[in-house]
């Protein structure tokens, strides 16, 4: 079972945990991305996330399905923000339940690593003196 959402409101970690919790699970691993106050020594004021929404939802579903095939896991929730985030806000929450703990860690790390490579979502970092689309240029 998977729960994939793109949201313009603050993410609810407990909602993701509740979704994956199961009597058959012995382990839940949760990854929360958070907005850091600096990148390469520059102070970040806020972030803006833009998504190709239809494709981002499809890609996140594909990643969750592949994680279910590759690892012994039970349920996966992936919630991602769009719009403006302040410092300390959470762009992404991933929760994975599994009978055993190692699978929960491996699957959760697989999901975030793959999400960062393939899901069409873009982050713009806003500094006091400018802004930049992350990773756009070499």
């Amino acid at each position: 079972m998977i729960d994939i959402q793109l949201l313009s409101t603050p993410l609810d970690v407990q909602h993701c945990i509740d979704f994956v919790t199961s009597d058959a699970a012995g382990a839940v691993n949760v990854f929360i991305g958070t907005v850091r106050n600096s990148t390469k020594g520059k102070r970040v004021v806020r972030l803006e996330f833009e998504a190709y929404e239809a494709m981002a939802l499809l890609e996140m579903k594909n990643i969750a399905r592949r994680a279910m095939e590759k690892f012994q896991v039970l349920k996966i929730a992936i919630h991602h923000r769009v719009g403006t985030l302040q410092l300390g806000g959470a762009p992404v929450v991933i929760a994975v339940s599994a009978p055993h703990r190692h699978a929960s860690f491996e699957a959760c790390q697989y999901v975030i690593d793959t999400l960062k490579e393939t899901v069409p979502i873009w982050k713009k970092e806003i500094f006091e003196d400018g802004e930049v689309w992350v990773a756009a240029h070499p």
Partner: protein
Amino acid sequence: MKLTLLSFGIAKDITGQRFREWEMPDGAKVAGLRAQLARQYPILNELSALRIAVNSEYAGEDMALKEGDEVALIPPVSGG
């Protein structure tokens, strides 16, 4: 044929629009679209990478395009 061209992130800043119509000769492939875009927006070549998706799936250079396809310019993603 007419395509829908979507641009995101820095690609939207370069093409100026998130959503536009795009005209191509019948039978064109993704590689042809890429060449056409590079001529019209040479600054796209300065990106670390530019993937192209057709109807919400990443597409190879050899993929044939057809009337009504939704084609998206995907600069390096940075979600998470």
